[in-house]
């Protein structure tokens, strides 16, 4: 069987870093131009591979933060001290460098605005990234389409400084079809009027649509948050088939 001339999603490609931006103290957005990029669906990720001169390799997965409508691919890197890959991507990699990627990958934790009906997104920490791609994609759609697929986000972060995409989320929430609720679990500013605790049943019940509206639900973040939120949503009557989860591990 002849190998296809156009690289498929199995193949590693060398992308070029075209922008590096600081989002928070530990979060950076890396924007890549990927040759022959086939486009992606919101929620998908790429695998990134680093090969040292002696052949040593490290590989990680990063959710795509950008909307499918954008031509370049944005990733969010959370810098963890003592980790193997994120310090390299945050401290060493610079505009003009090459970075090997493979993708887009993922067929389960994906959403397209053509799937109408209410959308409920739950993010814990860096779990906001694939959900941001969904919200950015949502923002690009025609008003009538957005009206058919109103979106609500519940985003849990340790402190105000850890909230990624703060200003952009505020702008997105201006739309009548988008609602953003934040829960700060460790530190909140003195004048904070939002939630000051971890996501729990009451918060989900208050924030999410009732089960009778059959929202499509996506939950992403560290495993304990994801499993807790998903079980609580099912306990609130949501069909488990409509609750999709993506667990993020601690590796950096």
């Amino acid at each position, binding site marked *: 069987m002849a190998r296809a001339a156009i690289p498929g999603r199995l193949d590693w490609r060398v992308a070029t870093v075209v922008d590096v931006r600081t989002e928070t103290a530990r979060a950076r957005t890396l924007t890549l131009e990927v040759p022959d990029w086939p486009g992606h669906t919101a929620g998908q*990720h790429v*695998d990134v591979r680093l090969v040292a001169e002696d052949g040593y390799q490290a*590989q990680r997965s990063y959710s795509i933060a950008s909307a499918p409508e954008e031509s370049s691919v944005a990733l969010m890197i959370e810098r963890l001290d003592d980790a193997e890959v994120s310090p390299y991507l945050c401290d060493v990699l610079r505009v003009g460098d090459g970075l090997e990627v493979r993708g887009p990958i*993922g067929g*389960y934790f994906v959403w397209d605005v053509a799937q109408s009906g209410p959308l409920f997104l739950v993010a814990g920490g860096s779990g906001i990234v694939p959900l941001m791609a969904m919200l950015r994609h949502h923002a690009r759609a025609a008003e009538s389409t957005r009206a058919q697929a109103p979106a609500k986000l519940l985003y849990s972060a340790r402190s105000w400084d850890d909230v990624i995409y703060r200003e952009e989320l505020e702008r997105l929430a201006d739309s009548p079809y988008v609602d953003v609720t934040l829960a700060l679990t460790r530190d909140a500013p003195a004048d904070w009027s939002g939630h000051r605790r971890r996501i729990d049943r009451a918060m989900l019940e208050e924030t999410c649509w009732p089960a009778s509206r059959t929202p499509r639900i996506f939950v992403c973040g560290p*495993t304990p948050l994801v*499993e807790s939120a998903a079980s609580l949503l099912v306990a609130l009557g949501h069909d488990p088939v409509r609750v*999709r989860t993506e*667990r993020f*591990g601690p590796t950096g």
Partner: protein
Amino acid sequence: MQTEEMRLDGNAVAGSLLDVFAVDVTAAVATCAGCGAERLVGALLEYGHGMGVVLRCPGCDAVMLRVVRAGGYVRFDASGVSVLAIPRE
């Protein structure tokens, strides 16, 4: 930290599964050979922790699929999946 807190899901190993199946299987429906439950691969629980891929049934915990890259081979054991339904493009 409990092992359950460390587990991931099929999404996390989608790239490794590409090496075996040549298509993205996170949206494929896998039938558990143990209990018969049908679930999307993305929803299976993953316990590989860097040694390989270990996907277990969220219902009965049976091992459904294992993948290890060792030496010059990728080996997979899918004996815990009785049927895998991969959506056609």
